[in-house]
């Protein structure tokens, strides 16, 4: 046997030493304060909009998922890791909505400040009353969310607990600005409370209470609960699995009974099947945005619900609406 290659061995030792030194350095690296606006990276535009309400000029909030994208299916692009690498705060919807893409990005971002459990990590669902937590979880039911329905931002009242979770995160990463964040959060909650009252009044004037609707996905459960709509069926009953012809047939028969007021779908799904169902049943189809920045005019959390009511009213009077 030939003796070990000295050059190779030296290189390997130097490499190993560098890795170990760097690893140990992470344990003792001091935290540093930054006078620039805090970089807040959120998974969705709704969270970014609320972060701007709470943080004002003190934060620069950017969402990874565009408002017109399906938040379940976002590609974990390496470029997102670059954005996350310097973030002071990371905010996610949680409840496994981003399970297919956010964990890999956080693990690859090399930013210990925003990892789960760190001060810069915020799960916005922490203070939200989550609904539809399944008693049993099986993939035979489709891609169900075991921790409950994650589309909670579509109940406008949930804007308040989301804002409080973001406020708490901002205070953790920038305690010197605590008073500012607390004041802005309170102001946002106050304005939101008034807006919710206005939207409830609008829902009453439209006669939404008790109206039966069919939705494409389970995105609208919170909105329906907030405004007393009754969701009686889904175009896609098992999340993530296209409906079978048998289900579509049964759904059309169900909707032909005449008591369904609306067929509601998210605008990131293909509208061809819902349009066909609408034509066969005479139930108006309304294609709605589900997030801030879905359309250029929807710039704030308030704009989102104004836009939803602007679409629902005419749709209830009949005809397909976009």
């Amino acid at each position: 046997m030939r003796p070990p290659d000295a050059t190779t061995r030296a290189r390997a030792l130097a490499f190993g030493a560098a890795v170990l030194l760097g690893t140990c350095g992470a344990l003792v690296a001091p935290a540093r304060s930054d006078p620039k606006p805090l970089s807040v990276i959120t998974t969705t535009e709704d969270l970014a909009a609320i972060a701007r309400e709470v943080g004002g000029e003190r934060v620069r909030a950017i969402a990874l998922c565009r408002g017109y994208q399906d938040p379940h299916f976002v590609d974990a692009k390496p470029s997102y890791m670059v954005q996350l690498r310097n973030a002071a705060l990371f905010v996610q919807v949680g409840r496994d909505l981003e399970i297919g893409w956010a964990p890999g990005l956080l693990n690859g971002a090399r930013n210990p400040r925003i990892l789960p459990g760190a001060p810069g990590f915020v799960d916005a669902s922490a203070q939200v009353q989550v609904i539809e937590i399944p008693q049993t979880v099986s993939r035979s039911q489709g891609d169900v969310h075991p921790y409950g329905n994650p589309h909670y931002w579509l109940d406008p009242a949930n804007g308040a607990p989301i804002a409080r979770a973001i406020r708490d995160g901002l205070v953790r990463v920038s305690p010197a600005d605590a008073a500012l964040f607390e004041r802005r959060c309170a102001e946002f909650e106050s304005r939101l409370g008034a807006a919710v009252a206005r939207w409830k009044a609008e829902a009453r004037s439209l006669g939404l209470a008790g109206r039966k609707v069919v939705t494409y996905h389970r995105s609208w459960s919170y909105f329906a609960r907030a405004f007393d709509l009754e969701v009686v069926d889904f175009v896609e009953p098992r999340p993530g699995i296209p409906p079978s012809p048998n289900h579509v047939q049964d759904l059309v028969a169900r909707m032909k009974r005449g008591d369904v007021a609306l067929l509601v779908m998210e605008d990131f799904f293909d509208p061809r099947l819902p349009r066909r169902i609408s034509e066969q049943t005479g139930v108006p189809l309304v294609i709605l945005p589900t997030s801030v920045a879905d359309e250029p005019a929807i710039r704030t959390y308030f704009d989102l619900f104004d836009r939803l009511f602007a679409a629902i009213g005419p749709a209830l009077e009949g005809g397909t609406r976009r």
Partner: protein
Amino acid sequence: MLRTAFFTSWITSSLALLSALAAGGAIAQPPTAGSDSTTPATSAWIANPAISVIGWFQSVAGNDHTLPAEAFALPEAELAFQSAIDPHSRADFFLAAGPEGLEVEEGYLTWLAFPGGGQAKFGKFRADLGKFNRGHPGETSFADRPLAAAAWLGEEGLALTGVTASILIPNPAAIYWDLIAQVGSAPDSLASPVFGPERRGDVLVLGRTSVFIPFDEGTDLHLGASYASARSHPALRSDGERTRLGAADLTLRWKNPRRSIYRSLLIQVEMLGGRGSGDLAPVRGGVYGYAVYQFARQWKAGARLDRSDSPGGHERVHGVLALLQYQPSEFSTLSVQLRRVHDRVTDTDREAAFFKWTFNIGPHGAHPY
């Protein structure tokens, strides 16, 4: 004649099976949603690692004698155990259960961040030589491995046990640019067609850099270059004591972000080249490229072209593969694949047809990109 008839009926049966599954059947309503709460119903999940199984069933037909003799096989079931260890690190273990027993396919600890934007992995992991090699056999679109990957990195791909360090390189354009260094015990000459360590000091050293360039919200390009060096396989030592491998890879992806689940395109090209450390050693290598287009929510079609020298230099093969893929859900993929390989030395063709059904049970894992 009989073989041709069997081959034809095999393809017809596989396509019929795909069609039947795609047509679907009666779907029961899901159970009504349960209670409302702010706490998860199953907190035990939080303490346990995420446990999942990825397996695939495969059927092969044709006259390709280089493939396993069995017409039906469950080549591998991969058990994954993944969890954070503490706020600083995580562990990912993948155990491959196959006809030859249970082995650790990958098992590594990751230190998630250290100063300067670095990250380190310790354990057994798939080498970052090219992009395709990182994928586990069951996760790739193909029933086989590209000819050059199999010829140069082995049928199971190249894995090593050691240390990885990686950093994101800051740059004015703020694009993703990484640098990876790996050092570890190289696979032995039974597992690797080009490497053959004999002593403790015979380590494999590897470097890789890659750049990710987004063109717009739906289109991006990932370019990578890799280099590895280790003691040569005994059969290749006439070309030098060490074998050096280089790889260049290009991945182009497109997806309409407004209709992300309906249309997508993936194009990947990878070149591999190797040379012994001897002064007169020849350069040999291979290349493969493939495109997979998603033309409907659950359907994809693709093709792959292959060319490879043998590391020993006595054989050069060309190949072409076509696939049709049906994805009933995120957790299951069925495909029919046809492959023809032409051996230029003997001027013979080998043909094979595959049916592959990959499934995943357990928690929803993150999708690699």
